[in-house]
């Protein structure tokens, strides 16, 4: 146990050196690191949101909204097609994402099914098969009616596409906020995890995510006389005040034709506004409609609320215009961001939020530091008092252990959270366990009148299996914790697991190496342990 080959000795020293080199950047400020030669490692530990402040949001994409939109469209399309083919309807009803159709004359049922099949689009089939599947499921009922609904494949394809698009739009919106290193990940089938560090105003982020930002332009229904709203129109609320508008259901142009939107100021009133520009197709469409409707009102609608309803004073041919709601500067700014980034395919709902302000984060780092330093000091003193020279070896190993943990965390770019710091402190306490096992064993062997070398040799040998057993069980617990993994807890399990691995090395191999060096040099006849 006390013999180390040259190769082994060099490996041990290299591991320690590795720890020192890769842990070192964490002692420096970011500025100093930027000035370091490129050959030096520069990675620092990645601090979790609970330490540096930031927002963790778990959102769900409400793709069911899109499914029912699709059914709405289909409902209209089926009616139009039936009318065109002169097939008489007895009844058509839409409930719960199903359309139930009853014909007056059942002999046309074949034609109806053909029509529905022609409206059905191809969707991606089961994941990975590369096959196409039908979008619509058509079921003939016993009473002669026909039920149309979306197939499983269509729904999951819709969900998949909605989540993909949402991730893209969210990324664009957050990038516009100018924050660094956001994490945007798909979680499960319908969820997206968003982590944004260092935000001053987390509410602004949530506002940006909570807005679908579907912008459309509608003409005001000029035939509306204050009575019932006709089928082709709809009544909308103004976003800022109590007034309502009756607008044509069909939009004349939508946000998908926008190429740019920028915040600005109205040259006359000096109010904040948003300037926008359409693409070529949009410009032509907008030009034609404004030419045809000079003197009339039109409404700019955002997520089913009217944000502005100006009069068309003259044809707008250049393809650009402005929205002047009663915005604050930030509102104008955010609306421009939303319009530039594009609309979300479906609304997002926040399922879970964990936001930590920068103040609390800084306080947590400070208290984590104090607790670690004190905990470490207590353990170092106690080990020295208990085992003298051997205690010093164990203490040096413990410090090297810490530098290894820091080095590995930096290289893996694992996230250090407050519970992660707790994991490190716990490792400090438990890492010495292996040494305690060994040293107690050596004491025992000495009291059995074994020679120094024999006692030490036996101590390490006998403690080895116990150390492995004891650490493997804790390691199992750490792995299960990692699986449970929600943010901070994951951080705890990572540091715990890394700490177990490094502490077996430092407590078992490294202290043995120190002891071997000492014995070789001074060949003691008795030891004080």
């Amino acid at each position, binding site marked *: 146990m006390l013999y180390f080959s040259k190769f082994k000795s060099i490996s041990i020293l290299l591991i320690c050196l590795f720890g020192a080199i890769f842990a070192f950047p964490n002692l420096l400020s970011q500025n100093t690191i930027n000035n370091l030669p490129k050959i030096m490692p520069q990675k620092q530990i990645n601090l979790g949101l609970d330490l540096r402040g930031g927002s963790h949001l778990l959102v769900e994409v409400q793709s069911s909204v899109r499914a029912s939109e699709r059914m709405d469209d289909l409902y209209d399309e089926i009616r139009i097609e039936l009318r065109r083919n002169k097939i008489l309807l007895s009844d058509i009803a839409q409930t719960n994402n199903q359309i139930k159709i009853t014909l007056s004359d059942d002999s046309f049922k074949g034609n109806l099914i053909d029509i529905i099949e022609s409206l059905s689009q191809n969707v991606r089939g089961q994941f990975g098969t590369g096959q196409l599947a039908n979008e619509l499921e058509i079921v003939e009922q016993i009473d002669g009616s026909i039920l149309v609904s979306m197939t499983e494949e269509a729904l999951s394809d819709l969900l998949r596409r909605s989540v993909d698009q949402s991730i893209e739009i969210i990324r664009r919106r957050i990038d516009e906020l100018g924050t660094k290193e956001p994490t945007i990940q798909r979680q499960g089938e319908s969820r997206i995890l968003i982590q944004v560090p260092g935000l001053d105003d987390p509410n602004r982020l949530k506002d940006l995510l909570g807005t679908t930002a579907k912008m459309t332009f509608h003409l005001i229904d000029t035939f509306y006389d204050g009575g019932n709203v006709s089928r082709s129109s709809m009544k909308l609320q103004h976003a800022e005040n109590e007034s309502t508008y009756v607008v044509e259901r069909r939009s004349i142009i939508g946000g998908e034709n926008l190429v740019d939107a920028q915040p600005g100021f109205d040259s006359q009133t000096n109010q904040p506004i948003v300037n926008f520009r359409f693409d070529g197709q949009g410009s032509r469409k907008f030009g034609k409609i404004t030419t045809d409707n000079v003197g009339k009102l039109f409404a700019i609608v955002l997520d089913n609320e009217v944000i502005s309803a100006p009069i068309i004073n003259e044809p707008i041919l250049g393809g650009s215009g402005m929205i002047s709601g009663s915005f604050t500067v930030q509102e104008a700014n955010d609306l421009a961001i939303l319009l530039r980034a594009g609309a979300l395919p479906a609304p997002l709902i926040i399922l879970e*939020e964990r936001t930590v302000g920068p103040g609390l984060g800084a306080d947590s780092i400070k208290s984590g530091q104090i607790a670690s330093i004190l905990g470490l000091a207590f353990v170092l003193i106690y080990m020295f008092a208990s085992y003298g020279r051997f205690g010093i070896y164990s203490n040096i190993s413990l410090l090297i252990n810490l530098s290894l943990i820091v080095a590995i965390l930096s290289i893996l770019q694992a996230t250090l959270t407050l519970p992660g710091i707790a994991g490190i402190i716990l490792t400090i306490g438990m890492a010495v366990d292996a040494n305690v096992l060994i040293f107690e064993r050596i004491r025992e062997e000495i009291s059995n009148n074994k020679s120094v070398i024999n006692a030490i040799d036996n101590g390490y040998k006998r403690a080895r299996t116990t150390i492995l057993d004891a650490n493997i069980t804790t390691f199992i*617990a750490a792995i299960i914790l990692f699986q449970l993994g929600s943010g901070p807890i994951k951080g705890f399990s990572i540091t715990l697991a890394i700490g177990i691995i490094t502490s077996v090395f430092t407590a078992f191999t490294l202290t043995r190496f120190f002891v071997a060096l000492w014995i070789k040099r001074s060949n003691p006849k008795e030891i004080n*342990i």
Partner: protein
Amino acid sequence: MKPFKLIKLDTSINFLSKTKLFVSLSLIFIIASIFLLFSRGLNFGIDFNGGTLIEVQKISGNADVSEMRARLGQLDLGNIQLQEFGKKTDLLVRVEQLSEEEGAQQAIISKISEVVEVDYEIRRIEVVGPKVSAELIKKGIIAVISAVISVLIYIWFRFEWQFGIGAIFALVHDIIITIGVFSLLQLEFNLSIIAALLTIVGYSLNDTVVIYDRIREELRKYKKMPIMELINQALNLTLSRTLMTSITTLLALISLYLFGGEVIKGFTFAMIWGVLIGTYSSIFIASPILIGLNIKRDWSKNNAE
């Protein structure tokens, strides 16, 4: 300098003489914990119950709980809990989840921020909706059970089934009594407490395994020694180590409890308690059980190492 020895090498305490007393004591604690769990229940945090938690800090001067209560009371948000949090300037606001509708709590946050942000800084916001809290409960239970089972398998594989039973009994003992303490003191039970429970599982087992290893070693060495005497000897030989490790771990944990900040206090409390009960159970529960389970005496052909 002469190193200081916590336990003298020739210490010989008869741990097993009081086995009946300790086992019945533990049984009483377990029954009491289960009773508490059903009568008083646990003070579930928002992780498991859903709801909103907001930590605020008065920008200048001390926070005023009753004034804040009045301020928030006007918002008509249902049951709001308010408490000082660590420092005189800090308050913790908890709002129960009122509806099953996802996302409804965001409206609550904006209402609260509006009235609070005048003279307080918002330091932390946590919101857990109904779906996520239900999932976290499930995940938590699965995690604890799978930890216990995988550890059982490991011990079985490394030792004998009797040792597995003994270790699991001690683990379940530790977990139930820890949960009982949380119920008794009505401390907040959240995700980080589950993490603490799993760490306690690891720690308590660590202790038990060290003692079991020693018992197995003694079994190989002394084939004729009465089992009681043998286990007692193993306990005495490992006692110094058991206490040393508990003390170093406690030293680290206590400094974390005192200086690590309010946010992880519950977690460290559970850990400190876990170290104490884990140490107790390895000595007084896990080891005596082996006597009752009739462990194998002849280990000469077994090469478990």
